C-alpha cells in the first residue's frame, strides 16, 4: 500500500478548527484515487497531510495514522517524504524553483538537492521527461511555457524524485481543455507505470476518465467512497456542490425524459476526451 490513512484528523497551527476529521483512505500502487468535494471540504489539506508536508513543514496538529510506503509520516522529515511522495499544486508558476534557465535544469533541481551523482541526476531527468513526453521542452525557459506545458514540467520535476506516490491538488484548475488533456494523459501513463496517484480535482470529466476510485469529501469527512462510475453517478453530488461529469448529466436528463434505454452500449465517458456530435431523428434519444 503506497498510502494508508486511518482516522487522520488535522487542525492548522493557531486554530482549533478541525479541517480533516477521522479520514480513512487507501491508495494502492498503480491506482488513481480521486477526491471530489465542495470548496472548504478539506481537499487541499488532505493533500498536504497525505504528502507528509502537514504537519512536518507547515505545523498544525495531526492525530490518527498516515503511512507512506510503510512509514508513518510523523517520523519523516520533509525531504524524506519528498522521495516517497511528490506533490503538485494548482499554480505551476509557484512550483518552479525560479533559479533554472532551462526546463532540463528545472527538473534536475530536486535530484540535485539530494546530492545524487551527476549521472544519476541526468538519468532521472531524462526518464522524467520521457514519461511526461516533454523532451522537446528541455532547452526552453521554464517561465516561458504555456499553462499546460508548465504544469507538465512541474509534474515532471516531482516525478524526477522517483516517488512511489503522487498527490495532485487540482493540477488542471488553471488549464484549458488541451492542457487538461495533457495532464490527464500523463497521469494515466504514470499510473500504468505503477505510481499511486491521489488526485484532487473539480473537473469530474477528468476524474471519470482517469480515476479507479473516487472519494467524496464533505466537511473534512469521507462522505462516500467507491468505484469512479458509482460515486460520480451518485445524485447527492449536486447537493454537495460537485458538478457531475457530462456523461452522468446526459444519462440523468435522458432518464428523466424516459429515454434511458436509448443509451445502451454507448460510452459516454468519451465525452470529456473529445468533442462528439450526436445526430439522429426526433425521439431517437
Amino acid at each position, binding site marked *: 500500500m503506497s498510502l494508508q490513512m486511518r482516522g487522520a484528523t488535522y487542525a492548522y497551527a493557531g486554530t482549533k478548527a478541525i479541517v480533516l476529521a477521522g479520514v480513512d483512505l487507501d491508495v494502492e500502487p498503480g491506482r488513481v484515487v480521486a477526491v471530489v468535494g465542495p470548496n472548504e471540504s478539506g481537499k487541499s489539506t488532505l493533500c*498536504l497531510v497525505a*504528502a507528509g*508536508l502537514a504537519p512536518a*513543514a*507547515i505545523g498544525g496538529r495531526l492525530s490518527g495514522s498516515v503511512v507512506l510506503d510503510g512509514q508513518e509520516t510523523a517520523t519523516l*522529515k*520533509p*525531504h524524506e*517524504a*519528498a*522521495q516517497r511522495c*511528490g*506533490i503538485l*499544486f494548482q*499554480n505551476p*508558476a*509557484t*512550483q518552479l*524553483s*525560479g*533559479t*533554472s*534557465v532551462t526546463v532540463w*535544469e528545472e527538473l*534536475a*533541481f*530536486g*535530484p*540535485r*538537492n*539530494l*546530492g*545524487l*551523482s*551527476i549521472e544519476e*541526476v541526468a538519468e532521472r531527468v531524462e526518464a522524467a521527461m520521457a514519461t511526461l513526453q516533454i523532451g522537446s521542452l528541455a532547452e526552453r525557459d521554464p*517561465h516561458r511555457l504555456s499553462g499546460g506545458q508548465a504544469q507538465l514540467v512541474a509534474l515532471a*520535476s*516531482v516525478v524526477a*524524485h522517483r516517488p512511489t506516490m503522487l498527490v495532485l491538488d487540482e493540477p488542471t484548475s488553471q488549464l484549458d481543455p488541451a492542457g487538461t488533456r495533457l495532464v490527464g494523459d500523463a497521469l494515466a501513463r504514470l499510473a500504468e507505470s505503477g505510481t499511486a496517484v491521489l488526485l484532487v480535482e473539480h473537473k469530474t470529466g477528468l476524474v471519470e476518465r482517469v480515476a479507479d476510485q473516487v472519494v467524496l469529501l464533505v466537511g473534512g469527512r469521507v462522505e462516500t467512497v467507491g468505484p469512479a462510475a458509482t460515486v460520480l453517478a451518485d445524485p447527492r453530488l449536486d447537493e454537495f456542490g460537485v458538478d457531475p461529469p457530462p456523461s452522468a448529466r446526459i444519462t440523468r436528463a435522458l432518464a428523466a425524459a424516459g429515454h434511458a434505454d436509448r443509451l445502451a452500449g454507448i460510452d459516454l465517458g468519451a465525452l470529456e476526451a473529445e468533442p462528439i456530435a450526436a445526430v439522429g431523428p426526433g425521439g431517437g434519444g
Partner: protein
Amino acid sequence: MRGWTGPLVVLAMVVATAAVARIGRSMVPFALAVIPLVASILLINTFLFPGATDVIVRIGPLTPTWTGLEAALQATLRVAAFALSVAVFALTTPTDDLLADLERRGLGRRGIFVIGAAIGMIPRMAERASEITDSQRARGLDTEGSPWRRVRGVVPLAGPLIISALSEVEERTMALEARAFSAPGRRTTLRRLPDSSSQRVIRWAAGLGAIVAVAASLAGFLPLP
C-alpha cells in the same frame, strides 16, 4: 591627483574590458541610468559645498565654487566607475554561470537560492505589474498622461503586486520542501566552468593588486582614492 587616480584607473580598466568584450553599446543604458544621481551630485556639491569660498561666478543668490565643482567631478567619476564596473560584470557574466561557480566554491543552497531567485524575480515582477496595470486600466484607471497621473497609477498597483507575491510564499515554500530543498549535505553541481590558467593568474593578480594599492595608499605612497 589625490581623489582622481582611483576612479580614473577603474574607469580605464572598465572601458578596456568593455572594448575587449564588445559590450560598449550595451553599457549605454547603464550609463544613462546614473544621470539623475550624477546631476544631483554636481548641483549640490558645486552650489552648496560647505566652507568653500573660491567662487566661480555669482548668479543672484547662487555661488558655485571651484572646490565644490572639483569634489562633484571626483564623486561623479566614482559613481560612474562603480556603476559601469557593475554593468561590465552583469553584461559579461550569465547569472546561471555565476551561481554554478559560487555553488562549486561552497556557497550553501540557501545562499544560491536567494541570489538566483532574487535575480529571476525581477522580470517576473515586472510582468505581473504590467498585467495588474492592464487589468486596472480595463476598469477605468488612468495611468497615462501627466507625471502626477502616472504617480497616482502606482498606488493601486503596489497593493495587489505585494499581496499577490506574499500570497504565493507559502505555496512556494511547500513546493521547495516537496523537492527536498531542506535535504542535508551538499547539492550536486551540474557543471564546472572553464577556468584557464591565465584567468586564474589575472584573478589572483587583481586581488593582490587591490590589496597592495590600498596598503600603499594607507602608507602614503599612492594618492588614492
